Structure formats: C-alpha cells, structure tokens
C-alpha cells in the first residue's frame, strides 16, 4: 500500500462520512475513476461479488466506498439489482468478476432484457494483452451478452470510461429500458488516466444512433381520440410501460375521465389500483375470465406499454377479432410485431396518456359494455374448492394479502405460485410487483425481494416462491441476517414443480415425469442454519395466526406452507389456443 496522504485520509473517512472523501479523494487509476463516475451518476448501492479480475475495482471501493451488497452467488446479485431497479424505477448496478462471475450473470441479464429492467453491469475481464488467449477466467462476455443486452461495451482506453459510464446509464434508463454491460479489462482498471482527456460529467452525450421518441405524434393522437369517442366497447390494456413511465396517476385519470375499463398484463399489475372499479384484472393464459372475454369482445383495444406477448394473446390470429387496435409503445419495433396495429403511437406512455387526457374528447357511449363486464366479473370470479384436509395455495395468498393490506412489495418466481399471487394479491400501489415475466426465471423471486428491501427499507417485502424455485437461490438467506433485512419468504410448498406437473396432468395424461419432489429439505431447519426464523404451516386452522406473526414481525422469516400438491391454476387458456378457448372459468 502506498503511504500517500490523500489515500490515508480516505481510509479514515471510510466508514464515517462520504462528504470528506468527495472533497479530498482524487481518483488516480481506472478503478478509482469507475467509482467516482458511479457516484456522479448518483449510485448509492451496488450488488456484486469480487474476484481476480475486479480486485482493483474492489480496492477502489474500499478506499472510496459505495454501499456494496455481497450476495452469495452472482445470480443473486443480478436478481437483487433487478428487484431494486423495478421498485425504484432506476438502474440497478452489478459488479462481477471475469469468466465464471460474468457467465453467472447471464440468466439475470436475459431476464432484465426481456422485461425491460434498467441495469448497468460491470464485469471484470482479463488483461488486454491476453484477451483471446483462453486465459485463466477468460470468457467472451461481450460475445455472450450481445444478444441479451440493450448495449454493451468493452473499455479499451481508460480515458473512455467516464463517457461509457454516462452513456450506459443513459441507455439503460431511457427509451425502452434494459441492461447495459461494461466489460473492464484488469490492466485498464489499474491504468493511470489523463485528467485532461477525461470526458467531464457536463459534456453532452452523443449517440447518433439512439434517439428514442417520447412525444406522441399529434395526428396519431387525434386518430386515437376519434376512435375512443366512436367506440362502443373500448378497453385499455395496461402493461409495464405504464409503470416504467411512472404514469399510474395519468392512467387512472385517463380511464376515469372517459369511463374506460382496464385490464392488465402480468407485468402491468399495479399500473392501476387492484380494486379500482374500472379494473377488470389480469388477462392472458391464467387471467380472469372477464379480462379475456373483454379482449375478445371489445371493439377498440388501447394497448399502453404492453408487447402482446404470447402468454397474453394466445393464438394471435384469433386475438381481439373485433377490435381496432391502438398500440402505444416507446419501442417502435414492438408495434406490429405480433398483432397488426391500426393506430400506432410511438411515445412514452405518460406523454401519450396526457395527450389523450388533454384532448378533452367526448366519452364513448359504453354504459352497456361496462354493465356487461361488471356482470361477467360477478358471475365468473377466480375460484377454488376448499379442501377439509389440505391447505389450498390460493388461501395462503389471500391471507398474505389481507394481513399486509395489499400494501407490500410482492416478488415471485415463475409458475403456479406466481399466477396465484397475480390473481389473489390485489396490489394497492405501483412499483410493488416484482416478477419474472418474459423469461420466467425460477430462483428470481427471493433475491429480487432482497434488492427490493434495500430499495424500500421501510416497506414490507414478501417473496412468494415455490419450493423448487426457492432452492435455486436460497443461499442468499445469508444476507437477511448480515444486512438485517426483514424480508418474508412465503414458500408455497407443494413438493412439486407445480406448473410442469399441471401441464403433465392436462396434456400428458398425468405422466409426472420428473416433476414431483417428494423429499424436500426441512425449510425451517434451513432457515435456522442462516439464523432466520422459520415457520411451518400444515393446517388451514393455524395458517392465519402463523402468517400474522411472521409477516408482522420486524425480523426476517421463512414460512413453509405445505399446500395441496394437485391443485391447478384456473382459468387457463391452453398454449397456442385462442383466448376464447379458456377453460376452468366456472367453479367445478
């Protein structure tokens, strides 16, 4: 270690205040510059895992600290960053080493790409002199991540780093959001930079190939307004674009002003209050009967920030057959990709909704339509048949909902528990629903909850996970104690890969090939090993009291809810079928 005065000052300042450092700390090498540039971007937390190629970066973090969360696996770090980004609607930052550290991020990067979650990811890389020589812990992460990032960079000259970081945050968090990766060779992280050449923070960004359009076209808005006024059966489909644009209040005002019914996509949940009278729930494969029926019968479908994913549309040829389609999306490539669009509007959701509100058009004459939908909603609610001997997973989620009052941040993995959570947890707020939608990543929910808890330290964060998915990332339990995080993990434990089993029951004559897991770990003991309180629920009578104790405590908790193994998620639109072919809408 050098005996340089400014660095010793910083070691003393290390754990106390960052203000002194800001004044006295002078970045010297590439890694210092990285930390400095991150602070300039307002980054106050990073999720990561050290390793050989990022030693310089971690040394810089030691001298000039940004809060660093040490997960137990890089996948945990990136899912935590996703949870953080989803809840705060700003980029999450991840650091990992080269080779295996970088490749362990790949699932999370893909997940963030497909669900448009803003992330800035730093990976270490071997020194530029040995890149391409199959060096120790070398992986071509630029090649690997080119198709799964919004953009990626390899730093070739330390003087480029501030510009790259600035561009990366800009790209990640504007337009259609997404992950940006910066690969940082080890020798460059130690390079001394030339202060005169360094791109200043006030210098404008120059990206001629990246100019997302946020303002809606006036003529298109006019056409849309006309279509709304003339519609008899209008319907708004609200997707995650509404949330990314922070347009919940605008959406609510818009639909209230013109009396438009709303349905949500899975990722759009929370874009309007779960119990709003104009909200007819989630549409899609396991959506509400009324929501899917509304899509099939509407004469005008106003898609705001959803990408017509196949799990939403079913058979695209028979999707919304009677509807004129208005599609508002910030990404022009989404328009017309899956569903032919009549009135495309390329814009930020908030700007477009505001423009439609300001049009002051005549509300459509849709009283009959609303009556019809209300009746349908009344007649075909989500349903389950209670069982004397077994707990139903839906009951557990209903209880979690009532105990937390719909106010918690809820994260999930993928599968049956995810669908039940989407159906039965009526969200009061936006930015409180963190789920892996497009990629469908098992093991996402629990680390995402950790990230969400860092984002909102005073909010209740509940990870609703399956017994199988939880085991993919449960090593992150170590963080709950270490960082004092009161995250609650509710394991919907059916000792099976529930959704796989359901499809095998319905489409493979009940041949349960590798989908049952009769021997699961004792999750209470597992929690205990990490010094986290574990609870077990085996009967419905004790469920309420246990959940109440666990969810209301200020401590972290793992709740192992043993539920009926053979319960299925309904309603269901079989894959590839039309939304009209929905089954299980009525209580059996």
């Amino acid at each position, binding site marked *: 270690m050098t005996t340089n005065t400014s660095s010793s000052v910083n070691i003393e300042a290390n754990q106390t205040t960052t203000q002194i450092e800001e004044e006295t700390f002078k970045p010297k090498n590439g890694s210092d510059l990285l930390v400095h540039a991150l602070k300039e971007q307002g980054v106050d937390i990073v999720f990561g895992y050290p390793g050989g190629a990022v030693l310089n970066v971690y040394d810089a973090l030691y001298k000039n600290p940004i809060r660093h969360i040490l997960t137990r696996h890089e996948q945990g770090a990136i899912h935590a960053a996703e949870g953080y980004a989803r809840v705060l609607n700003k980029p999450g930052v991840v650091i990992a080493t080269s080779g295996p550290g970088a490749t362990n991020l790949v699932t999370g990067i893909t997940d963030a790409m497909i669900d448009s979650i803003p992330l800035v990811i730093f990976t270490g890389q071997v020194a530029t002199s040995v890149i391409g020589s199959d060096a120790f812990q070398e992986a071509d992460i*630029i090649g690997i991540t*080119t*198709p799964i990032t919004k*953009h990626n960079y390899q730093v070739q000259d330390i003087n480029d780093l501030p510009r790259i970081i600035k561009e990366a945050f800009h790209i990640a968090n504007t337009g259609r959001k997404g992950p940006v990766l910066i690969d940082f060779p080890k020798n460059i992280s130690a390079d001394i930079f030339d202060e005169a050449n360094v791109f200043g923070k006030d210098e404008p960004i120059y990206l001629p*190939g990246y100019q997302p359009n946020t303002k809606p076209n006036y003529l298109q808005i006019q056409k849309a307004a006309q279509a709304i006024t003339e519609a008899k059966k209008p319907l708004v489909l609200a997707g995650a674009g509404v949330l990314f644009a922070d347009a919940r209040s605008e959406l609510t005002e818009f639909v209230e002003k013109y009396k438009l019914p709303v349905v949500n996509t899975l990722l759009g949940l929370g874009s309007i209050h779960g119990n709003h009278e104009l909200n007819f729930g989630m549409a899609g494969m396991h959506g509400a009967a009324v929501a899917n029926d509304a899509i099939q019968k509407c004469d005008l479908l106003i898609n705001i920030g959803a990408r017509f994913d196949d799990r939403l549309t079913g058979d695209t040829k028979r999707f919304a057959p009677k509807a004129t389609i208005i599609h508002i999306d910030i990404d022009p*490539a989404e328009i017309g990709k899956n569903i032919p669009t009549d009135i495309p509007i390329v814009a930020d959701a908030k700007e477009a909704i505001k423009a439609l509100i300001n049009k002051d058009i005549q509300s459509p004459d849709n009283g009959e339509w609303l009556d019809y939908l209300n009746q349908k909603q009344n007649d075909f609610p989500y349903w389950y048949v209670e069982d004397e001997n077994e707990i139903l997973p839906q009951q557990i989620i209903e209880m979690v909902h009532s105990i937390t009052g719909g106010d918690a941040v809820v994260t999930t993995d993928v599968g049956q528990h995810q669908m039940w959570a989407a159906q039965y947890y009526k969200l009061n707020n936006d930015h409180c629903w963190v789920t892996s939608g497009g990629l469908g990543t098992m093991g996402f929910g629990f680390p995402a909850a950790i990230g969400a808890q860092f984002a909102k330290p005073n909010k209740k964060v509940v990870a609703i996970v399956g017994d199988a998915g939880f085991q993919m990332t449960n090593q992150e339990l170590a963080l709950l104690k270490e960082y004092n995080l009161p995250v609650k993990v509710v394991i919907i434990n059916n000792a099976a890969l529930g959704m796989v089993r359901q499809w095998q029951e319905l489409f493979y004559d009940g041949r349960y090939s590798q989908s049952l897991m009769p021997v699961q770990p004792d999750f209470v003991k597992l929690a205990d090993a990490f010094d986290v309180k574990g609870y077990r629920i085996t009967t419905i009578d004790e469920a309420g009291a246990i959940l109440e104790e666990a969810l209301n405590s200020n401590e972290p908790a793992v709740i192992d809810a043993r539920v009926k193994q053979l319960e299925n998620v309904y309603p269901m639109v079989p894959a590839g079928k039309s939304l009209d072919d929905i089954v299980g809408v009525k209580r059996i």
Partner: protein
Amino acid sequence: MRRVITVSVLNQSGVLNRVTGLLMKRQFNIESITVGHSEQPNISKMTFVVNISDEVKLEQMIKQLSKQIDVIKVNDITDKSIVLRELALVKVVSPANLRTEINAIVEPFRPQIIDTSKNVVTYQVVGHPDKIDAFIELIRPYGIKELTRTGVTASVRETQPVETLQLSILK
C-alpha cells in the same frame, strides 16, 4: 423476395457481429453482405441482401436493426432506382489452344485478365450480380478452378424516376 438493405453504422468493434447476430436471432437468412468505410469518418456502410417475402417480417427486421445503438440508419433500397455492383475473381482452366476461344466468348462481359499462367487465367469481372451469374455459367464448361465473389454493394441513383399521375394509372 430479394431485398437490398443498406445500413450505416458507427465504426465500433463488434458492430458487424451485432448486426449479423441480430439477423440470425430473428431467423433472417443473409445471402450476401459487404462492409466498408463510408464518406464520413467513423461511419461504415453495410449492404446486405436478404430473402424475405413477408412485408411484416421485413418491417420487423428494419426496426430491429434500427434499434441497435450503433446503427445510425437503415434503408430498404430495393424499390428505388439503384446501382448494384459485385466483383468476382474467376480462375479458369485455359490451355494455350483454347485461350483465344475463351477470351473471345467472354469478351462481351468486359472482364479483365489479372493473372495468368501456363494453363490458368484469372478473370476479374464487375457488374450486376446477374451479369456475374451469367459470366460464370458461360465459362463453367471450360472448368472453373476457383471462384470468389465479394457480395453486392449498392448505391441509390441521384435522379429517381418521378412518379407522375399518368404513370401510376398506366401501371
């Protein structure tokens, strides 16, 4: 249908990989691709030929390419008045007793002889890809020893035919 697409890109490392990777991921098959510097520093121009019959897929491909950060401009120039050029180097078996005959046959294609040895002549032929196809077919019976083609590069003509009312009625 064959489409000729030109793409202006920032001349960054990996940009070719981005463009071809994207086309592969979205299942578009590239027939040919050429890349080189443009008149502006740091900007390269790519010309590629793809076979797409579906209008929706074509639009999707153009949008996906435009979305790339390093891509500045994408143009489908197929329906414009354009100049298409390709260069081929063809090594032909050409013994002394046949050489005059071969040279006479290929003469209308105005190829250049750029290398020659006792039994082999290398022709360079430049033109529209159809012309090159025709040249190759013509010379094939004499025995092609080696063939390399550059792929198509293209440029839009300065003067475009004016769409007049009468013309569109005639169509």
